[in-house]
């Protein structure tokens, strides 16, 4: 066998989920103490152990929800279907939620996995170049302002039961879905469900709309109430450190 063939053979043996390959003794040396099969078994166990461990460290709450044995069974299935594609092992679970959905795992578990993955993405996101404070808003140019958000901010749509499961509390709502923002404030990852109007405003702002368009979602027919609501939401974004900068279109 040449180098490429030897590496392919080794990789097959080390990643096989169905026992040792044939001809191991032809490729690898054995000793009285340890056969070639035993020796390859060390790598085989190491491969699955390391990747399962990587999944466990990212999807701790999903594991608790599924139970250890079921998590391991599903994790092994995931490893077989989705070998790692990233040099950092912590990124191995990128498609885990998708995989769980594909095999019809319970919705709560799928959405818990989505939430935990989003939290990891927030954890490792680049630092913002700076964090804007509310005084970055110039009231005279407010309608022409556009917001730039910090790199760690993510949002997703989840079954609310996933949020309850994450927190280890009973579900507080019977709604079918909720929109959730996930972000990192300095070193701490946080998440929070958003009211519909705030979520719409956020999506609009992230898409690059000016604040005059963003605040249109708060139109309730009562200008005073609309301004109060818009102010409350925008203040919340600043206080949660979601904003990197504010820019203004020319008049």
């Amino acid at each position, binding site marked *: *066998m*040449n*180098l*490429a063939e*030897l*590496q*392919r053979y*080794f*990789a097959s043996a*080390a*990643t096989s989920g169905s026992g040792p390959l044939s001809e191991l003794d*032809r*490729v*690898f*040396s054995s*000793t009285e*103490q*340890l056969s*070639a099969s*035993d*020796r*390859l078994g*060390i*790598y085989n166990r*190491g*491969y699955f152990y*390391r*990747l399962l461990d*990587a999944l466990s460290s990212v999807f701790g709450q999903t594991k608790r929800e599924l139970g250890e044995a079921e998590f391991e069974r599903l994790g092994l299935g995931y490893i077989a279907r989705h*070998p*790692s*594609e*990233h*040099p*950092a*092992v*912590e990124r*191995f679970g990128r498609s885990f939620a998708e995989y769980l959905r594909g095999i019809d795992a319970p919705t709560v578990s799928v959405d818990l996995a989505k939430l935990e993955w989003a939290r990891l993405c927030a*954890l*490792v*996101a*680049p*630092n913002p170049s700076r964090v804007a404070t509310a005084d970055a808003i110039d009231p005279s140019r407010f309608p022409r302002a556009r917001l730039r958000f910090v*790199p*760690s901010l993510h949002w997703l749509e989840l079954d609310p039961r996933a949020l309850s499961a994450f927190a280890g509390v009973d579900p507080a709502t019977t709604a079918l879905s909720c929109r959730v923002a996930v972000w*990192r404030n300095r*070193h701490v990852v946080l998440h929070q469900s958003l009211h519909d109007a705030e979520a719409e405003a956020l999506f609009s702002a992230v898409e690059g709309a000016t604040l005059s368009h963003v605040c249109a979602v708060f139109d309730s027919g009562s200008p005073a109430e609309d301004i109060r609501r818009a102010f409350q939401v925008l203040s919340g974004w600043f206080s949660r450190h979601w904003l990197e900068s504010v820019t203004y279109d020319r008049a």
Partner: protein
Amino acid sequence: MHRAAAPKQALSELPSARPAPAQARVGFGLRVPHYDEILSDGLRADFAEAISENFLSRGGRAFSVLERVRAEMPVALHGVSLSIGGMDPLSESYLAELATLATRIAACSVSDHLCFGTFGGHYAHDLWPLPYTEEALSHVVERVQRVQDRLGRRLLLENVSSYVEYRASTLTEWEFVGEVVTRADAGLLLDLNNVFVSAKNHEFSPLTYLRALPKERVQQIHLAGHSDAGSYLFDDHGSPVSAEVWRLYEESLQLFGVVPTIVEWDEQLPELSVLEAEADRARTLSNAHLAKRHEALR
């Protein structure tokens, strides 16, 4: 944080021999369970090791730890996913990120393992041993040279511990390791625990291994613990450095002189103070060796 860009220098201009140090430089790896303590109290070491893959994303607590440590001491970047012996193409995006990181923190060294860890475009996240053949030798040397050209600096390669031997091997491990670093003009990161583990698992003498290495290429040393699995030794980095490996360290001081040394601990991590004590022991041995040498030169 010191952000001076590493000057791009032709490899031929870089010294291949390590200058004799005036004092020992000993440190240990930055690991997640210690981050809070490091952020609040800093690190008591001469230099630190950062696993390259853990710091590629330029954000969050990990990066704050790196910046905090880098403000106080040099940092050695140590990778696990380069797959220098693999058949998959070298990842250009990975190398680009690594080069950026190395420049950003002015890394005192950049290293990875002499092994393969990719297959069919996937990462094993393990350090799989290579067959020690002329074909593997040429393959690795060519890739090391490409990496060094890309990074604009010498790469340090670490010998890995292993549990298998290929029947196709025509060279001993020490011949292979020595030839790779010499032909590629690379440095050797000598992991003494790995030498000891492999020596037990494959029934060779660790001293034969050490004595055969090209002395001037040994530019960093790793110390770590292993466990005894009965029929083999397992390189788990989950315990103190064993007495036998400390003896090899003393032997290495005789053979290679005082070399920058990192104590690694990855499983069942103890308090930072335990790692500091291990590093202190290496520093004491190194400084005692230096003192003896100075005495002999008088």
